[in-house]
């Protein structure tokens, strides 16, 4: 696939932002803004990106960013889209950017409302699987078995990661897709496809977090790739809530989940029995996904 990945002309993220080294969210937004810019308006809720973008009047992005309170992102996006329309600015792409907390937890009601109304904007969740900006507290996107600041050893995150994609599919929105930073071409293709669709679009991006996950900053891409290779985070898209399609699955057998988990400190003391339980869950979800994809054909 031909890509303009090294095309600096279209870069929207300035150097000198405040992200940690190896931050998946910084990479995700770099790809995102480059794919969707330059005529882009970003609504940004409380998350790591509130910090990454820097302190006003400085900014890390070459587009307007409207910050908003934590639970409000979905609704503020609706307002910005409608406000721009009222001003005749129909061509500007409106993107709401939220972390997993602002999407899965505190932002879910506003997200659901906007999705149900089929508001004409794109909601992008960069998912680093916990409240990383406040120091790695558990969110409902945290995977089973992970240790967090609010589930320290010998505790661990109980219950499964919330399946946000099924929730969004249940809203029958025109487009929903998963993406992750190790597959920038796949991400870019989905973002550009989403940009051309009218109505509510949802992109779920897995964004490794070196300090939160307890990994080296150089491991981000490797982990992102392993998440896909193990089937822990499959790359797919859903059209109108019913048509499911795998977009980018590595050849051959899925890797054992243990290989993905063992490189991360948050799973370091995870007992084998729990790793097996999580493996079973991933296997089950994988089979369900394949059936959905098969049924969509």
């Amino acid at each position: 696939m031909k890509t303009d990945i090294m095309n600096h002309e279209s870069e929207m993220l300035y150097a000198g932002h405040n992200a940690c080294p190896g931050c998946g969210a910084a990479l995700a937004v770099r790809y995102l803004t480059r794919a969707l810019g330059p005529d882009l308006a970003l609504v940004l809720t409380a998350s790591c990106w509130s910090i990454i973008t820097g302190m006003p009047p400085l900014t890390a992005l070459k587009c307007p960013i409207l910050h908003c309170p934590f639970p409000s992102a979905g609704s503020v996006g609706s307002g910005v889209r409608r406000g721009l329309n009222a001003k005749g600015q129909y061509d500007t792409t409106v993107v709401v950017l939220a972390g997993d907390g602002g999407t899965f937890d505190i932002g879910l009601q506003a997200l659901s409302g906007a999705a149900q109304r089929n508001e004409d904007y794109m909601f992008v969740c960069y998912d680093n699987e916990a409240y990383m900006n406040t120091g790695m507290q558990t969110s409902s996107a945290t995977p089973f078995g992970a240790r967090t600041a609010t589930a320290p050893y010998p505790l661990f995150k109980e219950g499964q990661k919330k399946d946000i994609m099924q929730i969004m599919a249940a809203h029958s929105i025109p487009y929903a897709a998963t993406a992750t930073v190790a597959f920038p071409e796949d991400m870019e293709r989905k973002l550009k496809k989403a940009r051309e669709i009218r109505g509510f679009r949802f992109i779920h991006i897995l964004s490794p977090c070196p300090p939160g996950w307890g990994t080296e900053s150089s491991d981000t891409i490797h982990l992102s790739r392993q998440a896909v290779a193990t089937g822990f985070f499959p790359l797919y898209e859903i059209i109108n809530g019913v048509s499911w399609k795998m977009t980018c699955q590595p050849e051959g057998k899925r890797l054992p989940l243990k290989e993905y988990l063992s490189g991360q400190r948050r799973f370091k003391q995870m007992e084998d029995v729990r790793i097996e339980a999580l493996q079973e869950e991933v296997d089950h979800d994988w089979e369900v996904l394949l059936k959905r994809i098969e049924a969509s054909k």
Partner: protein
Amino acid sequence: MAFELISGSQAAAIAVQRVGVDLVSAYPITPQTAIVETLANFDARGELGGDFVSVESEYAALACAYGAAAAGARAFTATASHGLAYMHEMIHWCSGARVPIVMVNVNRTIGAPWCLDPDQGDSLSQRDTGWMQIYCSGAQEVLDTVMQAFLLSEELLLPCMVVFDGFYISHTYEAVDVPDQKTVRDFIGPPPFEAQVKPGAPANLHGLTTGDNQIELIRGRHEAMKLAPQSFKAINSRFQETFGRSYGAIDPVIPDGAKTVILAAGATAETVRWALPKMQDTGLLQLRMFRPFPREELCSALEEHGVEKVIVIDRNCSTGMGGIFAQELRSALYGMDNQPDVQDIILAGGIDLTIEMLERIVREEKAEGHVEQKWGVDLR
């Protein structure tokens, strides 16, 4: 002039339609529903002239208005009671972001337990959120004030809350002079403020800042709000020329020689106005603007008439302190020469105020002298 028999809620909705807004975002709550239903009916007939969106919560209603106003659109919402409380975070955010938004709040008691009566504690508990607040005593006032609130809010870049009592005003009908759309639109004009979200223009709007910056921003909006009484006066003198009516931050009705005045905001002010002929030597001080608090206007009105006693009707209570209007008044009068005595009548829970109660209040005050606080239920 075209008089129509309409409710306070209809008056608010008609004002919004006449002004012409880009966006109405709303969520229903008793006793505000008739406002959004009337606006929805305008929309259904193609007469709203803007976007109408039914959102999933009050919080969303204000968040949506925030987004639209940040994009340069004229936005309106309305709520009451628990809805206003649920919006609280967004209420702060909107004033901090300096977006002009007009919101109607129809007073209703906040639970527990559930109660629909028009306690003012909902809007008064948003006192420190950086919104202007104007209280109305009747449907005509509601219609006129909602129109004026857009001008005030857009001039000062501060959101404005127009407040009136549930049921007593929202659901009662009166003859209201309803101006035609063209006259109103010529008077109000298009939104004069600049969009914050400007496509193509990088900006980090309302991102993390330091206390050193924040104090300047807080001072900026404090100074802006202090201009409200003056701006309101200018708006009203223009309004008078076009519509033949005008209002002040306070509207005093103090007969010569009256040494006692009753201070009231909202529907109770109208009750007092009706009762005045029955009560000798007693005046009315209708408090319309609550934020900013019209301290100078109040002090000079009291001084001018040599008022010795202010009886404050508080359809609210700050638990552990008392009626909120009385507290604010005492604070405003502190240090004044010949400071009048203040008596606080608490009608918390939104209980009714009758003319008989008013007569008794004034009679007892004259006989008893200084009594700091009385509860409305004891005065029936």
